[in-house]
Structures are given as C-alpha cells and as structure tokens.
C-alpha cells in the first residue's frame, strides 16, 4: 500500500464528500428545493432543517446539495470542452512548430485570453439570455487556450527527444506520434491542469450565478444563494456564510488534490522523495 501525502488525502476526502452530496441530490434531498414554504422561512438549524432555512423557507442543506451538483456539472463540462478542443489544438501546434498553423493557433489563444469568462458570459447573455448553458460555454471557451498552451508546451519539450525521432524513423506520422508518444507523456500535466481548471470553473460558475448569468431560479446554485443572502446579511449572516464555506471547501479540496497529484506524478519530485 502506498502512503499518500496528507494534503492529497484531505483534498480527495473533501472532493469525495461534495461529489457524494451532488450525486445523492439526484435521488434524495431532505426537502424539496423548488417549493417555497413561507411558513418555514428563516428557521434556525434544527432536527427538521439541519442547517436552517432561507427567507423563502427553503432548506439550506438541500439547496447546498443541489448547488454542488450544478457547480460540479458546469465545471466538469467546461473542463471537458477545454480538453476536447484545447489539447488537440496544442498538439497540432507543437507538431507543426513554427508553421503558420502554429502561429494562428497561438495567436487565437492570445485573443481568447483577452476575453475574460465574464465578458464572454455577458456577450452571450445579452443576446441569448442567461442560463447554465451560458456559463458552461463562457467558462469552457476560456479553458480552451489554457489546455492548448499546456499541451503545446509539454509536447514541444517532448518533440526534441530522440524517441520521437526514432518513431519517425519507424515510419510513424505526426498524428500517430502525437497519440502514441506525446499524449501519454503529457497526461500528468493535463490531469493536474484539469484539477486546477475544475476548481477555477467552480469559482467562475459561482461568480456568474451570483450576478445572475448562470443557472436561473428556481434551480438553486451556490452563487445564487449568496446573491439572495446579501440583503439578509445584517440579520441572518449564516445564510451568506454557509454557501461561501461550501465553495471554499470544495475548491480547497480540489486544489489540494491537484497539488498532491502533481507531486505524486512528477518524476523529478518522486526521485527527490526516494
């Protein structure tokens, strides 16, 4: 049995808890999150409402569970978009280093960096109206250049190695070499970057839903809960504290896991430890 480093373990446990909450929310939540029961408004924590209720009488724990689902889903799909489009672009740019294609891909990347996720979300919302889809696209687009850069950088350092030349002497083309030799050897980098983008995605989704550019009511989300809590902050600060804490713990867990994975997967660091 390998002994895992402490931060990695903490990170994995935190992430697992939120994942479990999110998955459970599909099957069961303590209360219905879409039903407003004014009689139950602003209840303190109790046996019936473990974390209390908000000003519309909705159960906070149930909302946090559904919110976790929304956060994870948006961030996951956004990372998926980044990987699916960014990695092939990065690999293609590296394989054709210095060519016009490389130049165009890299300049395209720089251009996307000029559009912060929020600006993309604003543009899309202005025309199509707000939705969770909107948030996914906005965050996903911003992830593309991130993954393109990471895979290009990793691939470029591999393309100079002799085993790539050996593969070319063995008659393999650039596409095949990228798939067989490059991709498996930059997988570590990509996994680590994916956890980072995943946690950034959760933060971004929270920000977008806070300003109303993501999931729409009645579906609860962590950012939305914070926005609703803002007017109540003088009298019921816990309404603002709890969702924020959920975001912090979730992101912290993912970051710790990312750092731990990087240390675990980086052969240089591995050698140091031995």
């Amino acid at each position, binding site marked *: 049995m390998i002994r895992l480093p402490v931060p990695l373990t903490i990170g994995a446990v935190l992430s697992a808890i939120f994942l479990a909450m999110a998955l459970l929310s599909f099957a069961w939540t303590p209360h219905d999150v879409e039903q407003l029961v004014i009689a139950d408004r602003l209840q303190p924590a109790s046996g019936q409402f473990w974390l209390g209720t908000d000003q519309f009488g909705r159960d906070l724990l149930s909302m946090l569970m559904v919110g976790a689902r929304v956060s994870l889903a948006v961030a996951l799909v956004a990372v998926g978009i980044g990987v699916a489009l960014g990695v092939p672009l990065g690999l293609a740019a590296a394989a054709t280093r210095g060519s016009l294609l490389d130049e165009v891909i890299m*300049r395209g990347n*720089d*251009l996307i*960096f*000029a*559009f*912060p*996720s*929020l*600006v993309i979300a*604003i*543009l*899309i*919302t*202005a*025309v199509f109206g707000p939705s969770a889809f909107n948030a996914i696209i906005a965050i996903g687009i911003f992830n593309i250049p991130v993954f393109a850069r990471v895979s290009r950088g990793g691939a470029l350092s591999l393309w100079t190695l002799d085993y790539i030349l050996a593969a070319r002497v063995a008659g393999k083309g650039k596409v095949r070499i990228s798939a067989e030799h490059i991709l498996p050897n930059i997988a570590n980098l990509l996994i680590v970057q994916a956890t980072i983008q995943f*946690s950034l995605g959760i*933060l971004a989704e*929270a*920000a977008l839903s*806070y*300003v*109303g550019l993501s999931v729409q009511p009645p579906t609860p989300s962590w*950012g939305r809960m*914070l926005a609703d*809590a*803002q007017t109540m*902050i*003088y009298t019921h*600060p816990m309404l*603002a*504290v709890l*969702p*924020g804490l959920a*975001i*912090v*713990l979730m*992101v*912290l867990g993912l*970051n*710790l896991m990312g*750092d731990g994975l990087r240390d675990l997967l980086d052969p240089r660091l591995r050698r140091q430890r031995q």
Partner: protein
Amino acid sequence: MLRYILGRLVSLSLSLIVASLVIFTVIEVIPGDPAAFMLGLNADDSTVAALRADLGLDGSRAECYVAWITGMVQGDFGTSYTYRVPVADLVADRLWVSLPLAVLSLILSTLIAFPIGLIAAANRGRAADYGIMGGTQLGIAVPNFWFAMLLVLVFAVNLHWFNAGGFPGWGTPIMALKSLVLPSIALALPQAAILARVMRSALIETLAQDYMRTARAKGLSRRQAVLRHALRNALIPVLTIIGLQFSFLLAGAIIIENVFFLPGLGRLIFQGITQRDLVVVESVTMLLVFAVIVVTFLVDIAYAIADPRLRRRG
C-alpha cells in the same frame, strides 16, 4: 528593441480588430435585427424601423461595422437607447470608479504577494513555507465576492469602520478612496495568493540555475545571490501572471461593484443587459477587451526590459 515594440504593436492592432469583429458579430449579427431584439416581441414595425434608423443600422453590416469602429476611435461610442445620452459620457463617469479599483487592487496584490513569495522561497521546506503555502491555498479557494460580503459583515456591519457600500464621488477624494478600500482588499487578496505562489515557484526554479552557483563561487552570500541574480530572472514568469491577473481583476471588479453598490462599468453593463441596451453592452465589452489587450502589450514591453534575450526578436 524598437523592432520588438513595433512587432508587438502590429499584433496588438490585429488582436483589436479581430476582437471587435467577434463582439460586433455576437451583438449585431447573431440576433438578426438588433433593433427588433432591443424592443422586444411586442414592438410594432414603425417603432423598430425608427430605432433602426436611430442606431444607424440601415446600411449593410460592413458599413455598420466601419461606422461603429470609426466612432469608437473618435470617442463616439453611440447613444444609449435607455438613457438617451452618449455612451461615452456614461462610460467616462463609471471609468473613474472601475479603473481606480482595478489599479488599486493590482498594486495591493503585488505588494502583498512579493514579500510573501520571497519569504516562502527563502524558507523552502520549513515551517514558514508550509504556513504561507497553506494560507495561499485557502486564499485561492475564497471567491472574491463572498470575501467581500464577509468584509462588509465584519468591518461595516459589526465594527462600523467603513460604509457597507456606495460611492460618494471624487469630490471628496479621501471619502472616495475610503469607499474603495474594502472592495480593493476583497479583489486583491485572492489574487495575491495566486501571485505569491507563482513568485515562490519562480524563485525556487531560479535558485536551482547554474548561474546561481556561479554567483556563489564568486563569493556572493546566499542572500546577495538571491537579490542580485535570482529576483530579476524570477520576475519574468511573474510578469506573465500579473498581465493575466489584470483581466481577472477587471472581471472581478465588475462583480465586486455589485456587492458594494459601486457605480462602475459593471453596474452599467448589467443594466445594459437587463434593459436590452445592446449599444451599451457592445461598447463597454469592447472597452474591457481593449483594456486587457493594452495591458498584455504593456506586459510584453516589460518582458523585453526584464529579459534582453527577447529584444532582438520581432
């Protein structure tokens, strides 16, 4: 060096042109008829036609684009449909809130991050390093708008040191600055956590370079070697992050304005969205993107100053 700057300028203008095309396409081409879009479903044809003429949409799309760009270059951002005033005037007012906020946060985050990163790198593997790294881990995980709410809770609601929000205007500079203190702290701290981590790893990487050994062999103490040889080299990756952070700060500022009820560009743009005022949305997003691209350009120049190897390249 001059050729390098010229090269960067060319790439800056290209980026601006492409970015403006993207924004123009999203706002004015994708919705079909922007005038009908802005008025909603129930508008009658004559009103739509009037608005279209008003917005200068009667020409071809290419003409519209050229008209928009030439207007922007001359400082004419169009007229807001809802406010019935030139967008340029609206923007000018708001810019004096958003820009100081972003700049203040950038300065604050840099001032916090540099010493912290340096201390962590110098004490690598010791308690101070672990403490700082743990703290930054937390800092990265905190959403800035939530942090802002906590600041309000503690310093405005409980301690009454600051106002919970609002902006008195620059007529009383001290009060204006004071109202920007909490927002800029809220923006700066999470960014400082990221920057400190980058600073630390850049320094650690630099410390392992051959030239650091050469410096020590010359008789420089560890401290002298770090100050004279490591810092400037470590600055190069840090600059990249500072450049990227500007766009995050700008975006963050838009959101933070909501927490503190600051009359900045963010509030303007959200009002634009809810009121379907495409003229405002289009011009303000272009302005934001313009700011990011210009900052990227400035970072590139700073790069070349820090790293002589870049100066020759075009």
